[in-house]
């Protein structure tokens, strides 16, 4: 034994601490990191534009964009643009995700619905919904109707796919347990299937709501007087980079707020996950 030990060199007799190789794969809440990334990026661009090696034709100065945002706020124009946008987003996304979750649950629960609707969903998923905007204008009118429809339609398909996948993944032994205690079908769906599918549904909503914001802008670029999309389109047409970026910043903020509020719901609703 000692022969083997000594043949490996002098320091093998020393105890070696076991190398730590666990940890990770468990996301923790570190909000300041995301914030720091933004700050660093903005400071970097500000420095670049100030010192001149980023030409004003490439990127506007962050400080100018901020000033534009300030003007927007003071003139009251910000809310004139934000109010219709938010309304379209909320109404459209609510219609799309509620029907999406409902249809997704049906597909998850009934073989008939699955056989009938999965191919249909697969067929409409890859259609760029923006391409259908002219059609929606004919169907639902040039006003709000077509915008709601576009956003609803765009959020609907990813929500359906995420929801029925989530329902499929609910632990069947829990469903059997419910049946073995004589729970009604409706109770099993409400108390076992839906909560069990909630993690998948929420992560699906993250994607669908981001798509909703993209479609919002697309819808507003076509025939809207007010709205963030209209504002960006107008700025782009005039090549007014400050205003264009001010609009983009508002959209990004919207995206961050949506994502943060889903994160909030996840923490509230999914605290049971290990």
């Amino acid at each position, binding site marked *: 034994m000692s022969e083997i030990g000594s043949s490996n060199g002098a320091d093998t007799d020393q105890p070696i601490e076991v190398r730590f190789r666990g940890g990770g794969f468990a996301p923790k809440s570190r909000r300041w990191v995301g914030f720091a990334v933004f700050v660093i990026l903005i400071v970097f661009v500000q420095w670049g534009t100030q010192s001149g090696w980023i030409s004003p034709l490439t990127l506007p100065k962050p400080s100018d964009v901020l000033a534009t945002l300030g003007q927007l706020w003071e003139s009251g124009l910000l809310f004139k643009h934000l109010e219709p946008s938010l309304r379209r987003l909320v109404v459209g996304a609510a219609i799309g995700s509620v029907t999406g979750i409902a249809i997704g649950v049906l597909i998850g629960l009934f073989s008939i619905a699955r056989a009938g609707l999965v191919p249909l969903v697969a067929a409409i998923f890859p259609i760029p919904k923006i391409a259908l905007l002219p059609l929606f204008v004919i169907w639902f009118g040039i006003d709000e109707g077509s915008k709601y429809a576009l956003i609803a339609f765009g959020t609907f398909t990813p929500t359906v796919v995420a929801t029925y996948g989530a329902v499929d993944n609910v632990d069947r*032994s*829990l469903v*059997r*347990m419910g*049946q*073995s*205690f*004589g*729970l*009604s079908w409706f*109770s099993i769906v409400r*108390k*076992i299937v839906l*909560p*069990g599918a*909630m993690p998948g549904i929420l992560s699906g909503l993250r994607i669908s709501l981001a798509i909703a914001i993209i479609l919002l802008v697309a819808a507003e670029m076509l025939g809207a007087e007010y709205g963030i999309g209209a504002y960006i389109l107008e700025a782009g047409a005039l090549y007014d980079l400050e205003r264009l970026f001010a609009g983009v910043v508002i959209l990004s903020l919207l995206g961050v707020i949506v994502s943060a509020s889903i994160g909030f719901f996840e923490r509230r609703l*999914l*605290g*049971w*996950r*290990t």
Partner: protein
Amino acid sequence: MDIRLDSISHKYGDTDVLRDISLEIPAGQIVCLVGPSGCGKSTLLRFIGGLERPDSGRVLQLGAAPEGCLNPLTFVFQDFALLPWRTVKGNVSLVLEDHGIRGAKARAIIDDVLTRTKLSDFADALPKQLSGGMKQRVAIARALAVKPAVMLMDEPLSALDSQTRELLMDDLVSLWTRQPFTAVYVTHNLSEAVRLGHTIVVLSRRPGQIREIVTIDTPIQDRRPGDPVCQKKHDLLWELMREEARAADGELIDV
């Protein structure tokens, strides 16, 4: 309420799983089912509980379920089957809600079953905060809450370490002595069977048939480890099981 199994046979596809099982499960007794892995014990239990239907044969309830019984045939699952998003209390109340039991009445039942399973201090804990033994006690509390006529337990202790298993067996014995319940108890573990069973049904290898029915007359609260009668029964069962296992091995070679 007694249960009678009337010549139950079943096939999954081409595999014969159970063949002509007839058995009486008398009220107030614990019937243990032992047998080699894959002989159809869990399948038989699902038939008794009405979660699946046998190809032929019937499961009969004899007599009415006792008064106040909410769910006559109640399972205790090997993997606990607790809802991870509900607290201990919530998991018990789940099975009461559908019977319209809420509020003070529900609280009384929940308090009672949690006390009987020594879980009162954990009423508001989530399953992820509990150890395996505690989770199984929650599952037992949930089963007790519906006042079952027959408890169907599928290897309820096999996910637990041996100390916890001993403790939970003691718990089951004291639950039974305080208020005798009827149970069908599936297990791999012969000492569990000898400890808890009034009758022990030995199933043969697949296709499962009744190989032997062993009864133990010693009252279950008086059974001690090392008790000569119990030890003899244990050895007998061991011998039977070993023959089955050996025969099953031989069959694989024959194929």
